[in-house]
């Protein structure tokens, strides 16, 4: 290692502090807003730190008393969980066989490229026919309909991840098993899938995050508590006539918790995914 001067070291530490402040300040403020009494948030000059922490908004939003703000919020939380889980399971179920097939039969590569190219499509290019189609099938404002639409985003993405995962498992292992008399199905079930389990888990978490984050289709295709997701509920709160900004912040904190926890859990997978994506480019 080269020897660094003291001035350089001071500079690096100051820059690191600045970066940490830039990242943390908005997030800490979101949390502080969520526990500050409403009077503190409308005080001038603004009170940056609450005199007493007030967690009542969390209680309010997570209560299930009929017709309360909590009922609408918990319904949207349930819908988000349902839609994201269903779409994730379906996307993985499609991606495992397809990802394996493309990984083992290069002749199919163009079909995967075609599927991945759909990433470029702006959702608005599909929105009108999807709206009409869901309406025709009676699936507007329905969690199943929304989960089906989410496959447009999730399925290409998970297939690409699964394919990259299967690429790292040597096909010689599979060939050896088949020479020993195992059928293709047995080989995949007993040998390949367990080896690919970490990739399946990573793909599923990524897919879940994508679905949890989705807003555009949910805004268009849902209209009330039966299917509205968390993102739409929060946008409603932010754009509505809620006078307590702390309540909006609380909803934001609650919606951010699951993806932030997942983000921390999959730090390593995320970074290696980014690098492999970079190398493959």
């Amino acid at each position: 290692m080269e020897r660094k001067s003291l001035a350089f070291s001071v500079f690096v530490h100051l820059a690191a502090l600045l970066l940490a402040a830039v990242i943390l300040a908005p997030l800490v403020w979101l949390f502080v807003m969520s526990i500050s009494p409403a009077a503190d948030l409308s005080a001038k000059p603004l009170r940056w730190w609450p005199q007493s922490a007030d967690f009542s908004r969390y209680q309010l939003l997570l209560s299930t008393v009929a017709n309360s703000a909590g009922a609408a919020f918990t319904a949207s939380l349930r819908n988000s969980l349902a839609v994201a889980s269903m779409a994730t399971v379906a996307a993985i179920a499609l991606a495992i066989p397809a990802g394996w097939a493309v990984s083992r039969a290069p002749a199919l590569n163009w079909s995967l490229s075609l599927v991945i190219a759909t990433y470029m499509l702006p959702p608005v290019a599909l929105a009108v026919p999807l709206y009409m189609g869901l309406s025709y099938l009676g699936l507007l404002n329905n969690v199943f309909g929304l989960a089906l639409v989410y496959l447009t985003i999730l399925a290409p993405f998970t297939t690409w991840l699964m394919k990259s995962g299967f690429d790292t498992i040597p096909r010689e292992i599979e060939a050896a098993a088949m020479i020993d008399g195992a059928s293709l199905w047995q080989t995949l079930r007993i040998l390949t899938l367990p080896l690919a389990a970490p990739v399946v888990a990573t793909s599923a978490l990524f897919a879940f995050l994508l679905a949890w984050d989705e807003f555009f289709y949910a805004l268009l295709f849902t209209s009330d508590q039966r299917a509205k997701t968390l993102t739409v509920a929060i946008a409603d709160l932010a754009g509505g006539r809620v006078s307590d900004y702390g309540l909006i912040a609380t909803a934001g904190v609650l919606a951010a918790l699951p993806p932030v926890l997942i983000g921390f859990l999959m730090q390593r997978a995320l970074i290696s995914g980014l690098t492999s994506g970079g190398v493959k480019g």
Partner: protein
Amino acid sequence: MSGTWMTTRAWLLMAPLLAVMIAVIGWPLVDTVALSFTDAKLVGTGGNFVGLENYTKMLSSGNFQRTLVTTAWFAIISVAAEMVLGVLAALLLNQEFRGRTVLRALMILPWALPTVVNATLWRLIYNPEYGALNAALTQIGLLDSYRSWLGEPGSALTALIVADCWKNFPLVALIALAALQAVPREITSASLVDGAGPISRFRFVILPYLAGPLMVALVLRTIEAFKVFDIIWVMTRGGPANSTRTLSILVYQEAFSFQRAGSGASLALIVTLLVTVLAVAYAALVRKTAGSAA
């Protein structure tokens, strides 16, 4: 394994995915093309064939041209800022200092925060009466009176770009950092021995390692920025005075607010075409960068 047998099996395994993709992407896309030549409404019966009328009307409308400029501005400025800030943050995180691991873990937070929550958070920060930005700037004496950051056409787009950058530059930083860590130590020390200054070291020793991954990040971020909808819808809905209206917002308004499915479809396809052209141009650039870096 024999080739054709394998390929047949492979197609069978691929079939469910392809069937679903045709149902939820292929058919809607074809239908959007068909709709774009009609004057169909969102609800009700099919509409009449009008040829290229939707396209000519859209392309020549001042609304479309203004929106295209707004979108391009948003995409160019936010992506450029994210790239610069991301690389600077990565160079910093590649240094040794106490708390480096913690800081690197913190970079995940803005990325993981849902886009809508990010938009809501910044909307609260920019609030004209009770927002933290006004309060902070007045308390340290940089601002005399509270401003409506999202309510004035002059500042709304910039305010949006700041919010978008805050969420996305950490991702660029993580990509760049991963690339930086692939630079062999021997090369940087050798360049030091050869007397390379920090700038020429960055330009000639480090940048070649960064170029490939950064190009990929640039392509993905530009496509995303060009399609931007969520953050703008939640923060300004395209206002004030349409100063933050991007192409996706315009399509939404045309097809869903005004229920003109036909012209909305033609507009959506124009956007798709623009994104495709961008992506193809970029792909060529990526291939060139990868070639020269290798």
